[in-house]
């Protein structure tokens, strides 16, 4: 079973996911975004891992989430990398320190071009000890 679900959005792509902690929510949102973008090839000769440090600020957790995913999209496009692992070193409501690790795009079949992360209908909720968020991507 997928760790996130797709929302039926007419023009774009939407995802919904839950997590026990905010850190996990941020990590899973990034995993889900790249799962929508690319599928790893099964061939051998994979490129070496590329690791990028990321530090960001925001005025609240939702803005920070959009900035986090936008930063990963920028790095993915400009460095031609697909990220597969995310380590959140520290995360508060307005600061984030993390590492993202990935491999060259040539090791993947690209499926969807995500142009950007939007703020539309974005809300992080906490219910019964679970964080939940839905995110709409422009494709």
């Amino acid at each position, binding site marked *: 079973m997928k760790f996130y679900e*797709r929302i*039926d*959005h*007419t*023009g*774009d*792509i939407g995802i919904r996911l839950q997590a026990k902690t905010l850190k996990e929510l941020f990590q899973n949102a990034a995993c889900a975004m790249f799962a929508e*973008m690319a599928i790893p090839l099964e061939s051998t000769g994979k490129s070496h891992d590329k690791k990028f440090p990321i530090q960001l600020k925001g*005025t609240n957790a939702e*803005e920070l989430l*959009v*900035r986090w995913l*936008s930063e990963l999209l*920028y790095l993915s*496009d*400009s460095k*031609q990398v697909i990220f597969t692992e995310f380590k959140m070193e520290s995360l508060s409501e307005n600061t984030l320190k993390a590492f993202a690790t990935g491999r060259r*795009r040539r090791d993947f079949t*690209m*499926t*969807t*071009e995500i*142009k*950007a*992360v*939007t*703020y*539309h*209908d*974005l809300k992080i909720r906490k219910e019964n000890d679970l964080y939940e968020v839905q995110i*709409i991507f*422009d*494709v």
Partner: protein
Amino acid sequence: MSETVNIPLRQLDPCRYQIPVSYNPGMRVPGMIYASEKLLQDILKDKAVEQVVNVAFLPGIVKQSMAMPDMHWGYGFPIGGVAATDPQKGGVVSPGGVGFDINCGVRFVRTNLTFADIQKHLKDLVGTLFDNVPSGLGSKSGLRLSSSEGKHLLLKGSQWAVAQGYGTSTDLEATEDYGSIKGANPEIVSQRAYERGKSQVGTLGSGNHFLEVQVVDQIFAPEIAQELSLFEGQVGVMIHCGSRGLGYQICDDYCHGIMKCLSKYQIEVPDRQLACAPVESPEGQEYLSAMRCAANYAFANRQYIMHMTRKSFEKVFRKNWESMDMNLIYDVAHNIAKMEKHPVNGDERVLCVHRKGATRAFPAGHPELASRYQKIGQPVIIPGDMGRFSYLLIGVEGARETFYSCCHGAGRVMSRSKATKTFRLDQVIKDLEQKGIVIQAQSKATVIEEASGVYKDVTEVVDVVEQAGLSRKVCRMRPVGVVKG
């Protein structure tokens, strides 16, 4: 997908539905949806109508928040949304009213070839176009620009491309704003945007972007068609793409920055993706200057792709493009904010017109049109889907009520995930083959997600804009060759 509930729609005539300003206390103007009864059934299935209401909250919005018959759920604005704001009355500019793919647009190039001339070369032609025009996710251009060339491109758009030999001055007359919007400032564009855009000039991208070889198969306005040298059976090429990673990054950079303007200027909007700044504020002016850079990039992108299209035809047919009369009919932007003069209550005002999935449609005699369109009006290019039709319309005076705007395409009616569950690749390709359509695409997923059935019938859409008096149909084109990302 949640339905639009409890939003009252007052039918004014067979293709106008008004949302009264009294519906929500935050609305500054009424909403107006252009649709037929049939199209409205689909429109009501998602959140697009709610988004028309949300746009009516924007400070300084003039007359009404509008949506064209190809409308569907977007982010912030609905796709198909049109809103003009008056800077003198606190009017705002919203990056969400333009979108991430700034100046996504369409151009149509005619030839003097008929379908009979190309039929036996069609596979070769589509293959050559597919090889010469990079498409698909992360596709890279053969062009490499220095930093100073990149800045010049952002300043001059298609004019840069023509100066490099990728077209002629006649192409510029057939491009909105002559392919170069004034007021672009490349100095404020982030390094990140340059980095993302530098290797993508002349690339199609993916998703709904395409290059199609089409055949004119029906003429509705013979006198206009004749003025544009269009005839039944004629082959043309339609190119649909935008500003690629550069545009996405510019929009992203300014979305985050403009979010702070909501508290600074005490603006309340129901959706953060509608974040905005007064047009005349430093933030508003800076966004517009950067947005124009992306718009110019998109014009240059389509100009270079047209150049490669001409080269492809030259290679396949062993004639030069001039002798095949491969002249540009027109190039239109459909994701953009423009400062334009419009009459408001008897006064001429300079307004900031947002077109988010909507096309400018100036009538005959409009001072911003090149002399050759003065008599007939501005050509308006409406792409449909890859299995049915596209249309060429012409701007008319009736579109004054929409600030001379009309629809931009067929409009999606089915999400990508539903398309994946509904259609199979082999069946989509077989259906196209049965219609004599040759397709080459980088991604199988794209072919499924762009199947004909995910779109509204573009004929119904253009019939509404014609019936509403927003544009007039000139001719219909059917696709015969499709290049997708």
